[in-house]
C-alpha cells in the first residue's frame, strides 16, 4: 500500500497548480460560469494541449498518457481546488467507462478524441443515481436520465443496467434540456432518449468504483482549498482587536477541519492505490472514499463559509461557489447513505 505522492506526482501537482492559477483564477471561473458555454473553451483547450489533462488516463495506444488513478487523483485535486468549470470530470468519467468496458473497438473509436481534447463526453446515469433507461429491440435506447455537462457533450456513454452504450446526442431520438443547478460552475442536463440509436460497448465492470475514487479526489481538492482559504483569512481578519485565528472558537474549528483533511487525503491516496494496484481492495476503498470524503468536504466547505462571517454570505465572495460544489459532489453518486449501505454490504454486515 502506498499513500505518498511520488516526486513525479509532486511535479505534476505543481504544474497543474501553477497552470490553473494563471489560466483559471476565480475571476475567470466566474466569467466562464456566466458565459453561454459555461466554460472557457480556450483555457480548456490549453489544459488538454499543454498539460494533456483529458488524455491523462487514456492508454498510450489511444493517444493518452496512460496514467493511473494516483496521477489522475493529483490532477482532479487541482481542478477541484480551482473549481475549474467545464466537462473535465464528465469526460474523465466517460473515459473510465470506455477503458473499463473491455471493448477494444469502442476504445479505439472514442478514446483518441477524448485524449486529443476534441471529444467532450459524459457518463450517464451516474452510478447510484436513478434513471429509467431501457434497451429496446435493435438496441435503441429509451428513457430519461440526468447527465453532467450533458448539453455540452458530443458523446453520451449511457449505462442501461450493466450494459454500456455509445449514443450520439446529435442523432435522432435525443432531447437535451439544461437543468438549473446548485453548483454554478458545472452544468447538468436532462437527457430524454426516445428509441435513440445506440452502439453497445461492453459492460460497466469496475466503473462505479473508479468513478467514486475520481470524485473523491476532486472533493479532496475542494476541501483543501477551502481550508487553505479560511486559514489564510483568519490570519488577516481582525475582530475585537485580534486576528480571528487567535480565538479558540475559530482555531479549534480549523484544527478539526485540518484533521478531516489529513484523513480525507489518506483515504483518497488509499483508494487511488487500490484502483491502480489492488483490485480486491477497490470496492471497499471506493465506498469508503465516498462515505468519508463527500460529507467531510461539505462540512469543511460549510464551516469555511460560516467562519468568513457576513462577507462569506455575499454573491461576490467565492465561498458559496465551493459550498455549492461540495454539496453537489456529496450527492453526485447518490445520497451518502447509499455509500454507507454499499460499505455495509461489502463488510458483510
Amino acid at each position, binding site marked *: 500500500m502506498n499513500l505518498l505522492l511520488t516526486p513525479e506526482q509532486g511535479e505534476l501537482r505543481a504544474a497543474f497548480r501553477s497552470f490553473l492559477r494563471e489560466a483559471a483564477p476565480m475571476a475567470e471561473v466566474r466569467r466562464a460560469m456566466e458565459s453561454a458555454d459555461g466554460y472557457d473553451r480556450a483555457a480548456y483547450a490549453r489544459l488538454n494541449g499543454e498539460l494533456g489533462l483529458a488524455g491523462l488516463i487514456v492508454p498510450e495506444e489511444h493517444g493518452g498518457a496512460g496514467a493511473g488513478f494516483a496521477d489522475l487523483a493529483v490532477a482532479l485535486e487541482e481542478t477541484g481546488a480551482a473549481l475549474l468549470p467545464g466537462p473535465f470530470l464528465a469526460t474523465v468519467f466517460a473515459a473510465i467507462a470506455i477503458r473499463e468496458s473491455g471493448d477494444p473497438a469502442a476504445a479505439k473509436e472514442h478514446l483518441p478524441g477524448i485524449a486529443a481534447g476534441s471529444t467532450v463526453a459524459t457518463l450517464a446515469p*451516474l452510478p447510484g*443515481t*436513478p434513471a429509467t433507461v431501457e434497451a429496446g429491440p435493435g438496441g435503441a435506447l429509451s428513457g430519461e436520465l*440526468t447527465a453532467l455537462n450533458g448539453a455540452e457533450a458530443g458523446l453520451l456513454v449511457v449505462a442501461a443496467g450493466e450494459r454500456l452504450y455509445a449514443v450520439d446526442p446529435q442523432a435522432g431520438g435525443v432531447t437535451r*434540456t439544461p*437543468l*438549473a*443547478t*446548485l*453548483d454554478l460552475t458545472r452544468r*447538468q442536463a*436532462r437527457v430524454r432518449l426516445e428509441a435513440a440509436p445506440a452502439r453497445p460497448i461492453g459492460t460497466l465492470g469496475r466503473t462505479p468504483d473508479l468513478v467514486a475514487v475520481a470524485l473523491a479526489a476532486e472533493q479532496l481538492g475542494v476541501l483543501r482549498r477551502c481550508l487553505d482559504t479560511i486559514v489564510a*483569512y483568519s490570519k*488577516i*481578519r*481582525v*475582530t*475585537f*482587536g*485580534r486576528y480571528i485565528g487567535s*480565538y479558540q*472558537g*475559530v482555531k479549534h474549528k480549523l484544527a478539526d477541519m485540518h484533521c478531516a483533511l489529513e484523513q480525507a487525503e489518506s483515504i483518497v491516496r488509499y483508494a487511488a492505490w487500490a484502483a491502480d494496484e489492488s483490485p480486491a481492495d477497490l470496492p471497499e476503498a471506493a465506498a469508503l472514499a465516498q462515505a468519508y470524503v463527500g*460529507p467531510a468536504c*461539505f462540512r469543511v466547505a*460549510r464551516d469555511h*463559509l*460560516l467562519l468568513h*462571517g*457576513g*462577507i*462569506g*454570505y*455575499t*454573491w*461576490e*465572495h467565492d*465561498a*458559496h461557489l465551493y*459550498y*455549492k460544489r461540495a*454539496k*453537489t459532489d*456529496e*450527492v*453526485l453518486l*447518490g*445520497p*451518502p*447513505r*447509499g455509500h*454507507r*449501505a454499499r460499505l455495509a454490504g461489502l463488510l458483510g454486515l
Partner: protein
Amino acid sequence: MSTDLVEFRQRAREWLAANAPAGGTGPGSVAEARAFMAKLYDAGFSGISWPAEWGGQGLGQAEQRVFDEEAGAYTLPTYYFSIGLGMCGPTVVDLGTDEQRRRWVRRLLRGEDIWCQLFSEPNAGSDVAALQTRAERAGDGWVVNGQKVWTSVAQHADLGLLLARTDVDAPKHKGLTMFVIDMHAPGVTVRPLKDMSGRSNFNEIFFDDVHVPDENRIGEVNDGWRCAVTTLLHERLSISGGVGGVAGGRGNPASFEALRATCDTADPVVRDALVELYVRERALELFNARLGQETRAGIFPGARGSAGKLLLAELTQFRADLATSLAGPAAVAWDPETEGAGGLAEALSVAPGLALGGGTNEIMRNIIGDRVLNLPPEPRADKNVPFKDLKVGTQQ
C-alpha cells in the same frame, strides 16, 4: 389566563380573520404594507405593548404574545416595518427624548415611516464597535461620511438608525454616537447587495457628506455604544421570536413536515434521520414556547434569548444539509420549469444567512457564556486604546 387576555385574543382573532390578507407569503408591495399598518394601528394592534403616551396601546407583553400567536396563522404584510418595529422604534422609546418619541414613534406604528438599521460595516461585523463611519461636527449639526452594509429594507427606508464614530482619539467603545438619519437626504446612496442565494435582501449604503441635524442625535455624544447595545438586544429578541417559527415558515421544503412527504420513509435509516430532525424541531419549539410563557408571566428572557437564536441558526443549517443529503441528486439539479423543484437548493443557499445575520454563532456563544452563565470575560486588547491606533478589519 385572565379574562382580559381571553377577550383580547378573541378580538384579535376576529380582526385578523376579517382583515389579514389571505394566502399571503411574500412581503407584498410597500404601498400595501403601509396601508395595512395604518389599519392595524387604527384597530389597536400596532405597538400593543408600547407606551400609550407615544402612540402605543399601553398594554403588556402578554397581549403582544397573544396577538403574535393569533397572527401566526397568517403572513401579515409587515416585513418592511420589521426593523423599525423590532429594533429602531424600541430604541427610540427607550433612549430618545420626548420630542424624538413624539416625532417618530406614532409615525412608525402607523406605517408612515420605514426604518433601517445602520450599524454593520465591511470592517465591523461581529465587532460592531470597530466601525469607521465618521460623524463630524458642522455648525449646528453633523456631517456623515462612510459606508454601511447588511442593511435590510434600506432601499425602501425613510429613516435609518445610524451608529457613527465621533471621536477617534477615544477607545473604540467610547467614541461612537447614535443618530437618526433621513434616508432621502442628499449624499445617501443605497446599493443592493446580492447574497449567495442570488437575492438582494440586503444593501450597502454610502454616505457622502450627509448632513444630520443635532436634534436627530439619540443619547449623548460618544455614548452611542450603550445605545447600540439596547438596539442589539431588541434585535436578537426579534430574531429568536421571529414569525417564521422553528419550522422555517409554511412551505419550507426542508422542514420535517415537508420531508416526511418527499422522502423515502420506507428506508429505516431515512426514518431515523427524520426522527432526529423532528426531535430537534420540537426541542426548539418547546423552548421558544417556554420563553413565550415566561414573557407572558413577566419574566424577561434577556440574554437567554440568544440561545434561541443560536439554536435556530444551527437547526436551519442542519435541516438544509440533511434535506439535501436525503434527497440526493434531485436536490442539486432540477428542471427550472417544474414548480418548487429548486426548493432544497434554495434552502441550502439561504441557510447560512441565519448564522451570519444578527450575530454569528460564535458571538451568540460568547453572549450565552458571558451573560447567562456569567463566565469570566475574554481578556480584551481593544478596550483602552485610542481607536485611531487600533487594528481593525482585514490586514496583515
